[in-house]
């Protein structure tokens, strides 16, 4: 199995290390080109600045091939900025990949001074959640499953092959959500 992490900017190394910590036999590769994208069974869109990721994705012609792979069923997981890029609607701007029926509000929790560590249940696992200038999920579409809530807000959602978390599991030492995503790929392969 090969898992890619979109490597344009952001928490790339952290995700790669987490995948390796689950299973050394899995190939964890940075994805910067169409050729690299073609080799992966699943893709993580990491945390970072969504405006930067989006601009680079479009400039370097990764937007269409990534979207096509997701629509064709490739498991994808967006953390924080990645969640924003997957959403169908972004408050105040055009959506990016539009493959997940949720509405989001960028920096919903406020500035960095409002960043926090929360906790809650993620699909039956009690986890710490690191929120850094995180987006709000303001609407969850029909058929989209809420996997986790924190302070009464949805913070992790899944719709088929698309997983999104407003927080950063890659910033913790707990790799169970990475395991969960690997499970999604296992079910496909």
């Amino acid at each position, binding site marked *: 199995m090969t898992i890619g992490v979109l490597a344009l900017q952001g928490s790339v190394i952290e995700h790669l290390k987490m995948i390796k910590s689950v299973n050394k036999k899995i190939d964890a590769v940075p994805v910067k080109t169409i050729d690299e994208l073609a080799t992966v069974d699943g893709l993580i869109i990491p945390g970072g600045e969504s405006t930067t990721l989006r*601009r680079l994705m479009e400039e370097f012609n990764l937007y269409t091939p990534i979207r096509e792979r997701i629509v064709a069923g490739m498991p994808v997981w967006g953390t924080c900025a990645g969640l924003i890029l997957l959403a169908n609607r972004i408050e105040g701007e055009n959506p990016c990949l539009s493959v997940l029926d949720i509405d989001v509000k960028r920096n919903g929790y406020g500035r960095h001074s409002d960043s926090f560590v929360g906790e809650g249940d993620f699909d039956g696992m009690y986890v710490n959640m690191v929120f850094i200038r995180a987006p709000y999920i303001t609407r969850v579409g029909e058929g989209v499953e809420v996997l986790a809530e924190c302070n009464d807000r949805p913070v992790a959602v899944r719709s088929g092959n698309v997983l999104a978390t407003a927080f950063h599991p890659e910033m913790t030492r707990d790799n169970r959500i990475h395991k969960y995503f690997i499970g999604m790929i296992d079910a496909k392969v």
Partner: protein
Amino acid sequence: MASKEETKAANRKLLNRNLAQMLKGGVIMDVTNAEQAQIAEQAGAVAVMALERVPADIRKEGGVARMSDPKMISEIQKAVSIPVMAKVRIGHFVEAQILEAIKIDYIDESEVLTPADDAYHIDKTKFETPFVCGARDLGEALRRISEGASMIRTKGEAGTGNVVEAVKHMRKMRTQIAEVAALPSEQLATYAKDIGAPLELVRYVAKNKALPVVNFAAGGIATPADAALMMQLGADGVFVGSGIFKSSDPKRRAEAIVKAVAYYGDPAILAGVSYGLGAAMTGVDVENMSEAERLAKRGW
């Protein structure tokens, strides 16, 4: 069991370091007003540094360089969704309190401004807001981290458009990290003493072969090639100060530097983004600069 306060402080330290990790592979641009901040954001900057004069102008005009007017910083905060950083003078903890009060995302305790204290840096552990600090070598970086910095940048020589000092500082730091990592454990205490750094942090570097925080390059980066050079030398990202808005076509140069940092290892892409960019800022020969003109020597 850790108390609630201890847990909260530990979480804050983690979150502050994590924010810097989110900026990795990105470009942080100096801007002096909301319009420039928007140009930077649209070009793909991961953050902006709000300041009244870019370092090249501070150098030219002289006088005391201070923290920017909070009004100007607030206007920039409203204009963009990316993090906003701002500078305070070395040791000027009240300027830092003011920036914290207006919820700045990152404070740069910077040698580019005129130092307010010739002996002491700010005790950054007293703040919730993260700090980035300049360093010329491993000892300086670890001293700043022990004072509470959540992010380091090599100092280079700001406002010169000359990358030579940034290269020197990055190479020095990488060499020293490699040295520490190769030392037998009984030599670490003496090494820590020699570079003036806390032993605990030297042990961390020896074990992890890396600083405990993100390290960006700064000070003299003017072209996409300069930015990619710093990345290939091991920087986690770059700060570009005067280099963008002192060039002939800031928007295109900003976009080009963002792309160069993302694809720093791909010469074909670097050639493409460097093509027909217009004039870079006029540079300054650092070698013939007097000691008094050098900003990097501020701080210890």
